[in-house]
């Protein structure tokens, strides 16, 4: 307890497994806070009278209060406080970019280091998990039914919130396993699937039903969903269609989209090929194109599968990389190489397999409309390097499966669903939120959007039903 009350400006770092050990398996890299760490870190919190951290949280967790409880050693109250707003704390404590949200606006950020809010959230969630998660409290049944399309972060959040308010919620999931990107996209070493499973179980314990293997738009239409007696629909189908570079040689064997590579590994457990049936190619010299979080996940996964050398190839400089600093740092620690200001112009093949890559060097020009400096090709700077596997991780388009099959649903040119600030779409009774509305973003921003939509859906349902009966709806 020596650190308790220690230096206010010194942040407690999270323990991590050493790189040489962690690159040999898929077990979690970050180990979380011990009780001692958590108490020391929570003790640093100023418990501001007007906390700035809370508005920084897209799902409005009462951060001050939950940290207050941790300070007192009352972890049960801490997790209960978090769960008032967030049904997925173990997930968010691991994958939220806190450094640009709650922690960025923490008062201590200006004076040194912000409180490790994410690590504390994770601590509270893991504490509860180790003790056994108590039965969730369900809301008074309203007899109103809501269908949720997609069981990713947005879908699970909308479903959880609505179930808590007493609505009967069914999630329709296209894949065989729920969780969306949490299941198929984010690797085990960053987000253990047992956590995802447990938090989905928690959402189910609120009364949410999940039907897997159902594609709304294919297996059942949106009209049929309403015909089944649902009073409202929330669409959270995500940004699930991989972008490619569309350069020569991209369809050679050994060239993957990050989505395919990660889906094979995470959802299908191809890293356990032999026990599981889904194969994956294991490259020796791997290039990952792009430098977002997905690219870091892909690079680190390739390394764990047994690649000798993994290089992240990015067209801008390190300063512009969209990945979280922490993930870039983790990747670098593990020996991932970075080739910045470089873009591939074609893939070179031999017998149908990728064998190399021709790239061109870039320089940075004026800032573009994203505010980042625009990469400009340097004429005549082409060069080649050897690779036997490429993972293209340059982003995703919205998933078109549902939007293509629904009439009257307003979408943008790129295929994003157009909504108002509460997630209402052009079809009455239909809401949408998450990546299918905003384009590729974070888990937590999808959850925030789902939360706003759930609130609006609740009001809509209560207006539809409750007012006539003179019944006063519980406030969310």
């Amino acid at each position: 307890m020596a650190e308790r009350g220690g230096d206010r400006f010194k942040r407690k770092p999270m323990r991590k497994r050493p790189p040489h050990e962690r690159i040999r398996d898929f077990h979690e890299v970050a180990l979380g806070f011990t009780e001692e760490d958590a108490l020391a870190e929570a003790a640093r919190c100023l418990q501001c009278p007007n906390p700035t951290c809370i508005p920084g949280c897209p799902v409005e967790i009462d951060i001050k209060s939950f940290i207050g409880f941790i300070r007192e050693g009352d972890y049960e109250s801490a997790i209960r406080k978090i769960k008032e707003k967030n049904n997925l704390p173990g997930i968010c404590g691991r994958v939220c970019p806190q450094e640009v949200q709650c922690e960025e606006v923490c008062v201590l950020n200006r004076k040194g280091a912000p409180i490790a809010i994410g690590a504390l959230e994770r601590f509270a969630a893991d504490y509860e998990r180790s003790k056994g998660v108590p039965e969730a409290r369900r809301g008074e049944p309203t007899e109103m039914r809501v269908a949720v399309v997609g069981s990713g972060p947005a879908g699970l959040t909308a479903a959880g919130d609505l179930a808590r308010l007493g609505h009967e919620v069914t999630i329709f999931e296209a894949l065989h396993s729920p969780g969306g990107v949490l299941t198929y996209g984010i690797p085990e070493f960053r987000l253990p699937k047992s956590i995802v499973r447990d938090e989905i179980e928690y959402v189910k314990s609120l009364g949410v039903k999940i039907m897997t293997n159902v594609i709304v738009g294919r297996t059942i239409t949106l009209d049929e969903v309403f015909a089944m007696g649902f009073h409202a629909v929330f669409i959270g189908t995500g940004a699930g269609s991989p972008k490619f570079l569309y350069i020569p040689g991209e369809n050679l064997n050994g060239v993957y989209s990050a989505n395919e590579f990660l889906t094979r590994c995470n959802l299908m457990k191809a890293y356990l090929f032999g026990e599981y049936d889904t194969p994956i190619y294991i490259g020796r010299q791997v290039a990952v194109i792009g430098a977002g979080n997905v690219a870091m996940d892909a690079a680190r996964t390739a390394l764990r599968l047994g690649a000798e050398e993994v290089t992240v190839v990015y067209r801008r400089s390190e300063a512009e990389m969209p990945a979280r600093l922490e993930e870039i740092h983790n990747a670098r620690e593990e020996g991932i190489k970075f080739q910045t200001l470089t873009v591939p112009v074609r893939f070179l093949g031999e017998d149908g397999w990728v064998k190399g890559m021709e790239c061109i060097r870039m320089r940075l020009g004026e800032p573009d409309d994203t505010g980042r400096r625009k990469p400009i090709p340097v004429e005549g700077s082409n060069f080649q390097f050897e690779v036997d596997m490429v993972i293209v991780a340059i982003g995703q388009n919205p998933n078109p499966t549902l939007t293509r099959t629904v009439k009257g649903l307003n979408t943008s040119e790129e295929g994003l669903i157009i909504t108002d600030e509460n997630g209402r779409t052009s079809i009455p009774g239909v809401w949408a939120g998450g990546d299918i509305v905003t384009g590729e973003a974070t888990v937590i921003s999808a959850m925030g959007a789902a939360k706003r939509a759930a609130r609006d859906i609740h009001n809509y349902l209560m207006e539809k039903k409750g007012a006539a009966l003179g019944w006063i709806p519980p406030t969310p």
Partner: protein
Amino acid sequence: MFKILSKERLAENVVSMLVEAPLIAGKAKPGQFVILRVDEKGERIPLTVVSVDESGKAIRLIFQEVGKTTTKLGRLRPGEYISDLVGPLGRPTEVKSYGHVVVIGGGVGVAEAYPVAKALKSAGNRVTAIIGARSKDLLILEDEMREVCDSLHVCTDDGSKGRKGFVTDVLKELLEGNTPINLVYAIGPAVMMKVVADLTRPYGVHTMVSLNPIMVDGTGMCGACRVTVGGETRFVCVDGPEFDAHMVDFQELMTRQRMYLDKEKMALEKYLREGAADG
């Protein structure tokens, strides 16, 4: 979980299964497919929906036991369950009145050609079908095809049934004959579809093929099934599975189909070795 209602062996390695799947059965149209996962540790594979049974609640799947997954599937018995089944996927066949249509099915591809031939016949086309297999014992759905076609040509590589030769030999004669052909529709091994495409190209006969690349999710999420059509990358699962045969890069398709050949062989051998122990 999806219950297997009945099972029938159509040829040595070809199995037909009726699987209970009311939602899919209510929606499936000719040309569409499902993705299935046999069990918890299984991979996801696409299979064409051959037909919907009279009750409207079950779909027929026909597959050849070639790898671990299909072998495992073939060993399931009526009353047992397939873990996951999702669909219908892909765009349905464009069924309209073309005039004279030649439908070609090679090997287990006959199972996929059947619903298309049937639908095209119902739409008022004159349907000539050519079906083929390596030998008599591997030929499937001959009677069913005969029922939905105006004329049927059967051929086997070894001459054990029908005429000796390839489906493309028959097609060549038809193309050279006096009856104009408005559409050729071919499903079978990629190499067969390639030969069909090469054959009809000089005659300028519109030719459609249904492609069968490796897939994972089947909903446009992974891009494993991408194929070059007319110089552009398309996803077979959402943009297909049917494409203009004259635009398809078959060489690329065939290379991509072989991507995991060594691993698939390894998995099958291991399965057969271990499976032998428990019967």
